[in-house]
């Protein structure tokens, strides 16, 4: 009985996805320090695939396009968290939430 309960608890936990509400705001929005921190994180973790200027390399798309910038901060955060494992984009959930929001702040700065 205990084993069955434990199994069901784990099963329930694996069914719960780690998403943020679509209207969640970036706590670092508009902060220049956060944009610079995000740029540093981008160089460390993203530039190898997306290019030093986020222009895209091979299968990794440019992050300067309208398709990226028309998405909400929460959607970008969620995409960084989950990735798209079947299409080669890794999950960056290993980075704390704060650092993923800083990367989102940096991506927003690319629009201008």
């Amino acid at each position: 009985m205990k084993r069955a309960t434990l199994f069901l608890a784990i099963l329930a936990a694996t069914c719960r996805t780690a998403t943020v509400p679509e209207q969640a705001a970036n706590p670092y929005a508009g902060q220049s320090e956060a944009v610079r921190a995000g740029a540093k994180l981008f160089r460390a973790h993203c530039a190898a695939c997306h290019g030093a200027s986020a222009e895209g390399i091979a299968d990794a798309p440019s992050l300067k396009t309208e398709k990226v910038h028309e998405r909400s901060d929460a959607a970008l955060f969620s995409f960084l968290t989950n990735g798209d494992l079947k299409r080669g984009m890794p999950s960056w959930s290993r980075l704390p939430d704060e650092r993923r929001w800083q990367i989102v702040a940096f991506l927003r700065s690319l629009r201008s």
Partner: protein
Amino acid sequence: MLRLSLISNLVLALIAALASAQESPYFVTYDHHMEEPGMLEVAVNPLFGVPKQGNRSIATYLELEYGAKGWWSTALYLDGQSTSRESGGFTGYRLENRFRLLMKEHWINPVFYVEFADVNGADKIAKEIVGFDGWRDLVEPVAESRHEKKREIETKLILSNNTRGWNFAGNLIAERHLNAAPWEFGYALATSRPLALAATASECRLCPENLTLGIELYGGLGEEGQITLSETSHYIAPTLAWSLPNGMTLRLSPGWGLTGNSNRAFVRFGVAYEGRLFR
């Protein structure tokens, strides 16, 4: 041993220029984070073993881990050891594959791990503790133990969670010699957290965001038909990972035995680089 060391140094030197790593501080426990697709991680992980009796030893393994897909990481390990007042040398290899079972991030993220190992009895890397593994395994004379062939299959169910900057991971381990010996079981539990969650705007080396502290607890659970904690060995090991801006990650973990069957201590070190293999 010398040959293994030379190969390790050569590969590290080749990869060093490409590096960009963000490593887990764990040595024994696996979390659900996979190698990024197309990236190769090269790591050297020496282990100093202090048994209750007998000669001390240094075991090391060279790890080559490749991100085949976003959901699949594959790795080759080359093991070696050197025991004081005895001999040293190459002790075998391991092939490992990890498969993420769910394509999205969940509250608990399961990963299936399968490994084939072809090592000899002198192998001392203690990458996991299973069954009734204990301090006597380390003091068996190398001249005898190296003639013992061990072909093993090992599976793990990895469960891992990230919450508010913390990672919590648990592994259930089942290992079996291919010569029809019983399944042996073990576990590994761990948690870790970076000292700072947000990054600073400037490049820094010895700053809290680059340091991750954690703790691991691992040990054996007996074998098929005899699942028990009695006569098994268990260890507790704080861990520290230091990620440098040039992409190198240094790791350190002193571990202490908790039961009469455990080794007195292990001290583990790790140096890792990560770079893109194909564009």
